[in-house]
């Protein structure tokens, strides 16, 4: 299940005096099993890009190919796209609408026309997988849940459709630190279970923690597309784009400046910890 984005451009309010370019000539390929982080400032076009991939916007020029087929061709089965690609919008809790959590989570699978037993099984599994107790929440109104629980329920609604590629737009924005950590661990688990993840954020720490590849957008253009190691190696380029590096990388760099010899390609916490223990021979618990 690969996605090819080919010379895609998008314009807002096309044909009016308020027209503006949101994306210019974007090309890249998403391989199965990747964890891609999309990084950039507000208004750089990252949300537009993922909405094009999810097929809720249509590109002005260029093509988006799902397994070699153009998703915007007239004869392309939209339902096939919905089954394969799931998108969690920013603040997904706003899309909850059913009377009970179970009804809401099962909305997607029901729309896909799956048999009732399958719908029920998927709903139960999706609710459990986001860390909610199925028996407790199934008959509750989604509106009575807490903020974090609402978001879990909304994400369960997407997972119940069992997409192979999961797109997340700022999935942990506005959550408290503990819930954020839980969520990141959860997203990582989804990736380890075999889902391809495409995650948008403007927080570089969040993205570099798990991404195997980073895309950096600026003013609608794809500026950088590489592994985090390679991208963080060019600090000057990042600061040109008004972006920093991850905090562990920052720590490593300032320690290296002080003359403490650590590998320069560290950008995550665990390798940093290991390197420090190796360097200073501390006691590992």
């Amino acid at each position, binding site marked *: 299940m690969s996605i090819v984005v080919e010379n895609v451009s998008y314009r*807002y309010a096309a044909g009016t005096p308020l027209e503006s370019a949101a994306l210019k000539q974007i090309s890249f390929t998403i391989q199965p099993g990747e964890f891609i982080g999309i990084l950039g400032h507000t208004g750089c076009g990252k949300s537009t890009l993922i909405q094009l991939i999810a*097929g*809720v916007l249509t590109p002005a020029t260029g093509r988006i190919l799902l397994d070699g087929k153009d998703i915007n061709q007239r004869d392309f089965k939209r339902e096939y796209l919905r089954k394969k690609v799931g998108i969690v*919008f920013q603040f997904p809790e*706003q899309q909850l609408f059913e009377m009970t959590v179970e009804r809401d989570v099962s909305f997607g699978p029901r*729309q896909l026309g799956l048999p009732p037993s399958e719908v029920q099984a998927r709903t139960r599994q999706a609710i459990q997988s986001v860390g909610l107790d199925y028996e407790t929440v199934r008959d509750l109104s989604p509106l009575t849940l807490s903020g974090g629980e609402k978001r879990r329920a909304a994400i369960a609604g997407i997972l119940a459709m069992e997409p192979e590629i999961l797109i997340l737009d700022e999935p942990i924005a506005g959550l408290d630190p503990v819930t954020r950590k839980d969520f990141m661990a959860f997203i990582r688990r989804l990736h380890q279970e075999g889902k391809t993840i495409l995650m948008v954020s403007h927080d570089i720490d969040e993205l570099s923690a798990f991404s195997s590849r980073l895309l950096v957008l600026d003013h609608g253009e794809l500026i950088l597309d590489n592994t985090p190691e390679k991208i963080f190696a060019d600090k000057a380029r990042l600061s040109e784009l008004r972006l920093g590096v991850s905090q562990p990388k920052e720590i490593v760099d300032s320690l290296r400046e002080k003359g403490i010899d650590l590998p320069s390609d560290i950008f995550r916490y665990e390798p940093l910890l290991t390197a420090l223990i190796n360097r200073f021979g501390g006691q590992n618990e």
Partner: protein
Amino acid sequence: MMHSAILSGHYLPNDTPIHRLNPRAKIISFFTLLAVVIITRSTVGYTALGLLLLSLAHLSKTGPRIVFSGIRRVGLFLLLIFLMNALFFNGDRPLWEYAFFHISVGGIAQGANVALKVIFLMALSSILMTTTTPMEITDTFAWLLSPLQRLRIPVHDFALMISIAIQFIPVLAEESETIIKAQTARAAKLDSPKLREKANALLPLVLPIFISAFRRADELALAMEARGFRGGKFRTRKSSPGFTRLDFAALTISIAFCAAAVILHR
């Protein structure tokens, strides 16, 4: 979604003489010209008005495409008005009659007259709407209606309500767009040809939008109260620019048109 909103008389920021007019002068001129459109019956009158509207469209850089874009949408309605008048109006100089159908020169003229009035009214309002912010319009209406305050009619409360409602339109429109996209991605069948499915598909859209509108209203009320807002009191404006020569020119032109129309069609 966005696209249609922009074409149908959405405010288009720009710096033109029409944009710079004092909103009070602009809206008084607007009503005066509205009266002209209603009074006018003759070819001369329509030609003069048409030329005026075209020059306004040109001056305001709105362009004929946007000025007349609203008209395309009511095309069927216009055609109906024209046909009703042309077929049923029992005017002079009959051309053809059958049962209760009468086609006459008078009827056709009457149909054209009414259709032209609608077109001109729409063009005039779309010039006003594209050059004046909704805020300016509500403020001016509150000002025009402020004498009613003496009759204990809470004009300013109404004006506040309307201006809040207008301010929330883009917010709600954007939110609706996101929710439509989100539910589409969950395979909601929004474009199903079956009426039943179509009605069912509306629920996942309407409910979240309502919930969020109520939440926003609640939050706004709280925020206003927290900052000590009290309705009902006469509030002063941050700025109220006086009339310039441009404003007097606009008023003079529109009143002259009105006077000419009254004399011409006496």
